[in-house]
C-alpha cells in the first residue's frame, strides 16, 4: 500500500502510527513536497490482517522475537508454555548489565498474560539496557511503549 500526492506527483512518506486500542489503526502519510498529510484508517478486521502477516506498518521498532506472532496473538495458550532462557547476548554501550524492576513495574508486568509475559519482559529489558537504564519503572515502561509502539503490550 502506497500513497501518492496527486497534485505534486510525489510518493507520500509514512509519518506516524496510532493504535487507539479498539482494534483499529491510524497511520499518517505526508507529502514531502507540499506537506499535505493524509490518514489511513483501518477497521479491526483490516488491522488484524496486517498483524497476521507478522509485519508492522511504519517498520519494526524491536527485533523480531521468537514465536512473536504466536505469543502475541494466540488467545488460548497455556500459562506455562514458555520459560526464559539465557540473558541477552552482550549489552549495549552504557549499560551496566545489572537490571532491576521496581515493585510497581513488577506488578504491572504480572498483569500481562503468562503466555506473552516473557517476550514483553525481554522487550522492556532490552530497551532499558540499550539506554543504560538500571531500573525499570512504570514510567520507563510508558516511555518504551510510546517510543517502540508497543500498544497492546
Amino acid at each position: 500500500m502506497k500513497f501518492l500526492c496527486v497534485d505534486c506527483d510525489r510518493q507520500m512518506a509514512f509519518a506516524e502510527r496510532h493504535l487507539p486500542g479498539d482494534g483499529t489503526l491510524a497511520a499518517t502519510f505526508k507529502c514531502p513536497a507540499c506537506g499535505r498529510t493524509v490518514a489511513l484508517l483501518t477497521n479491526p478486521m483490516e488491522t488484524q490482517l496486517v498483524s497476521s502477516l507478522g509485519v508492522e506498518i511504519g517498520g519494526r521498532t524491536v527485533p523480531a522475537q521468537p514465536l512473536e506472532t504466536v505469543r502475541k496473538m494466540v488467545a488460548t495458550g497455556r500459562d506455562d508454555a514458555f520459560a526464559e532462557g539465557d540473558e541477552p547476548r552482550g549489552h549495549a554501550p552504557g549499560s551496566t548489565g545489572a537490571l532491576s524492576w521496581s515493585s510497581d513495574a513488577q506488578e504491572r508486568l504480572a498483569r500481562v498474560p503468562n503466555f506473552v509475559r516473557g517476550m514483553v519482559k525481554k522487550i522492556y529489558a532490552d530497551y532499558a539496557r540499550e539506554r543504560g537504564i538500571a531500573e525499570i519503572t512504570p514510567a520507563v515502561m510508558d516511555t518504551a511503549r510510546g517510543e517502540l509502539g508497543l500498544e497492546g503490550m
Partner: protein
Amino acid sequence: MRPLRTYHDLTEADRSGLPEQIGAQRRRVAERLAGVRRVIAVMSGKGGVGKSYVTAHLARALARAGRAAGVLDADLNGPTIPRLLEVPHAPRTTHDDTVEPAVGADGVKCISMDLLLADGQPLAFKGPTAESFVWRGAMEASALREFLGDVAWGTLDVLLLDLPPGMQRYLELCDILAGPPAALTVTIPTPESRDAVRRAMRAALERGSPLLGIVENMVGQQFAGTAGDDLAGEFAVPVLARIPWHPTPDTWSALGARL
C-alpha cells in the same frame, strides 16, 4: 492532467518497508533450516489416513537408525505429534531469537501447537470474530513460518512436516520455504482415498515438489483396494511401505531405510 502513476511506479524508500520485513522473515527461515539436510512434507490431501501416525513412527525409526530427525506438527488445529512422540509437557525455553524444540522418544525433536495450547482448548486467536476467515489463514501461516524459522532445529538429517488434511498448509509451505518441499504421500487402500490423494499429488507435482513415494497405511482387514499401486503407477513413484494394522518396529525401520 498527467496520467496517474501506479503502485509499481512509486519506488521511493518507504519507512514501513513491508516487502523488506517479509524478506527478513524468509531469510530467518532459510537461516534456521540451513542445518537441515532434508525437509519432507508428509501429506495426503485426505483426512484420517494416519499421516501423523506414520510421521511420528518414521521419525522414531530414523532416529533409532542414527539419523537426527525432527517433526514439525503443521496440524495447528488438531495437533497430535507430541502424544505420538511421548513428549512430556514442559515450558519451551526461549532465547534471544529462538525457542528450544521439545525432544521426544528416541531423541526426535519436535514443535507443535499442542505444546503451547492450554489443555483441551482449541487454537483461538485474539482479534475480531466477525469475518475472521479473512485473517485466520494468514495467522496460521505466520504460526507455521515461526515454527520453521524460530525453533532451534540445529543440525538435522531430516525434518518431517506433518501436514493436516487438505492442501492449504502445503501451499503455505511452498510460499514460506525457498522451494517446494519433497512430498511423502500417505494413503489408505480404498478408491475414495486414492481419488483424494491423487489430487494432492497432482497439486504437489505442479508446484514442483519431488514426489518421494507412497506409504499405504492400514493395509488389510476392512480397507480393501489398490490405491497405493494405482497412485504409484500413475505418478511413477515407488510404494515405499505398506503398513499393516499392527506394524512392528521393523516395518518402520524398513520405511526409514528407503528414504
